[in-house]
């Protein structure tokens, strides 16, 4: 995915081929739901670059378009207009299956409601993205166990989601997001359903992961969560109104 080094000095930063420098590069993206008079403009032209290793918080009130932004960033949804370059490739040009591949390998999702597969053990949940990435069984087991170990839940590997606390479930979800070794960790209100203690745990984990060089994008409406990030983006009415480095 890296562009040959010789090209870097001669091509201006805005040109697409150098976009590989930025892990995420969205350009003038709009998203409209519905048609005609009932059309809802969730995003009205958003441009954003996130470099590898950044820790970004996206804030905004409900209905501001931050969730839509997150869905587009995670390749769960496609923009109505505009371009999305992820790690040097244009997402719009990818087939459905290739998009699935991108989701599986480059992005790790963490959701507000954990979204673990019910009736399936913690270990099996963590293994799932590895299964979809066509890894061998033994390799999957090894990596999933390591990821669970990383979030401190090795002893809960055989527990099902309904046998785990909210904090534990979210840690399993983080382990699952990390299992494939994605470049970006995309978290949508990750602490929304957690108590203060679990929130601290999860955010501590994000800090740790970011300090190890992982790109983290957190969508939240809580200021103390946003304060942990090093860059704050505020979205309002489908536009970015604040984009500042906070730390």
């Amino acid at each position: 995915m890296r562009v040959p080094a010789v090209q870097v000095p001669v091509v201006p930063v805005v040109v697409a081929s150098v976009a590989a420098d930025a892990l995420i590069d969205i350009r003038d993206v709009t998203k409209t739901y519905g048609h005609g008079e009932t059309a809802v403009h969730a995003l009205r032209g958003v441009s954003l670059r996130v470099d590898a290793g950044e820790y970004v918080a996206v804030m905004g009130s409900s209905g501001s378009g931050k969730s839509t932004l997150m869905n587009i960033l995670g390749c769960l949804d496609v923009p109505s207009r505009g371009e999305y370059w992820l790690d040097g490739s244009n997402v719009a040009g990818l087939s459905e299956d290739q998009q699935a591949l991108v989701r599986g390998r480059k992005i790790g999702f963490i959701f507000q409601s954990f979204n673990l597969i019910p009736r399936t053990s913690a270990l099996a949940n963590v293994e799932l993205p590895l299964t979809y990435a066509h890894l061998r069984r033994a390799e999957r087991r090894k990596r999933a166990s390591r990821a669970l170990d990383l979030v401190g839940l090795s002893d809960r590997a055989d527990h099902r989601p309904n046998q785990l606390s909210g904090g534990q479930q979210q840690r399993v979800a983080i382990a699952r997001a990390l299992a494939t070794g994605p470049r970006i960790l995309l978290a949508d209100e990750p602490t929304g359903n957690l108590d203060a203690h679990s929130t601290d745990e999860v955010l501590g984990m994000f800090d740790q992961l970011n300090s190890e060089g992982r790109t983290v994008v957190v969508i939240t409406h809580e200021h103390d969560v946003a304060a942990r990030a090093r860059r704050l983006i505020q979205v309002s009415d489908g536009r970015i109104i604040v984009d500042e480095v906070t730390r």
Partner: protein
Amino acid sequence: MSPRDLMGAALRGLSANKLRSLLTVLGVSIGVGAVIVLVAVGNGSGKAVQARLEAMGTNLLTVSTTGGGGGFQRGQAGPANQQYSLTLDDASALADKRLAPDVSSVAPVMTSSGTTATNGDTSYTVSQIIGTTPSYMPATNTPVGIGESFTQEDVDTSQRVILLGQTTATELFTRPASAVGQTIKLGAVDFVVRGVLASKDSTGFNDPNATAIVPINTLRATQAGYGALSQIVVQAANEDRVDTAQAEVTQLLTARHQVPADQTSPFRITNSAQILQTSQDTAATFTALLATVAAISLLVGGIGVTNIMLVTVTERTREIGIRKALGARRRTILGQFLIEATLLSLIGGAVGVGVALIVSRFQLAGVQPALVPSSIGLALGVSAAVGLFFGSMPAHRAAGLRPIDALRHE
């Protein structure tokens, strides 16, 4: 995903709602079981009829007269059809090797019905008394079980001897074996029991064992009078000559009775091979009818699979969204749900086959089912196809969901 992973995911999906899966399986197994059992019943009844007819002998021709369009029954010679009545001379002519070379044996038959037989205080109304010659027994596959048959000499000299059918012998003597050598009365006439016929399977509504056989001349002298014959039983030389024998019989009788060329033959010749063919056709139709009914129940079972899979897909929409977010491709989701549906109907198929194998060991509606091996394979194949076909719509619906829509589903 490897097949093993897919199978594991499908099994987990099915076991998530055991009762529902069980009921769906039940629907398919009833369908598959019904196909196998009903086809076996149809096949079994066909085989039973065939066996009975074959026991009768397939090279048998039964000649009777239709009375030339008159309303007279056989044997009741009226003025209009006396010309066409079957006589003993007809029987002798048919037995002539030069006139009918493909006929091996001939037995004239007269019957008398509703005669009361008495043995001391015991009496029994014999449904049919047959007067004939000894060649009747081998020709119609009516062997004498106990004792012996009467001879041609007995016929010629009008001996008062009698062969009892199983039912008749049992009714009169309780133990059929004790009947031989005893004397019974038919009406007012004494007969010596020469033998008891072996038991026969029923070929129709009448009990073929509620009979008695006496020499034809004796019957004429004592019971039925000297009227026309009821029928003449003709045995062809072998099974391949049945058609030629039938032609010879027709030609001979037409010539002997001077039937005008423009008239339809007053003689009805029943060919047992034809009866066999007809009843086989009937059995085939019967089987097809049963199979159709069973196929409908299999279809209903299949619709049950679709229904359950649709519910499952709706219920697990969110799970589908999660799987897609984690990198599941379209065909992975498709495969998972197709395998679930196919597994449902295959398990149903296997259960159905098992139940059918057990059920078809028993008699159903008086028929011993005869399993058709191909119907088992077919039913299993169809049940797998049912899963694939009826599962494909829900599975496609699941696979086609956009990840964001699926994730938002509550």
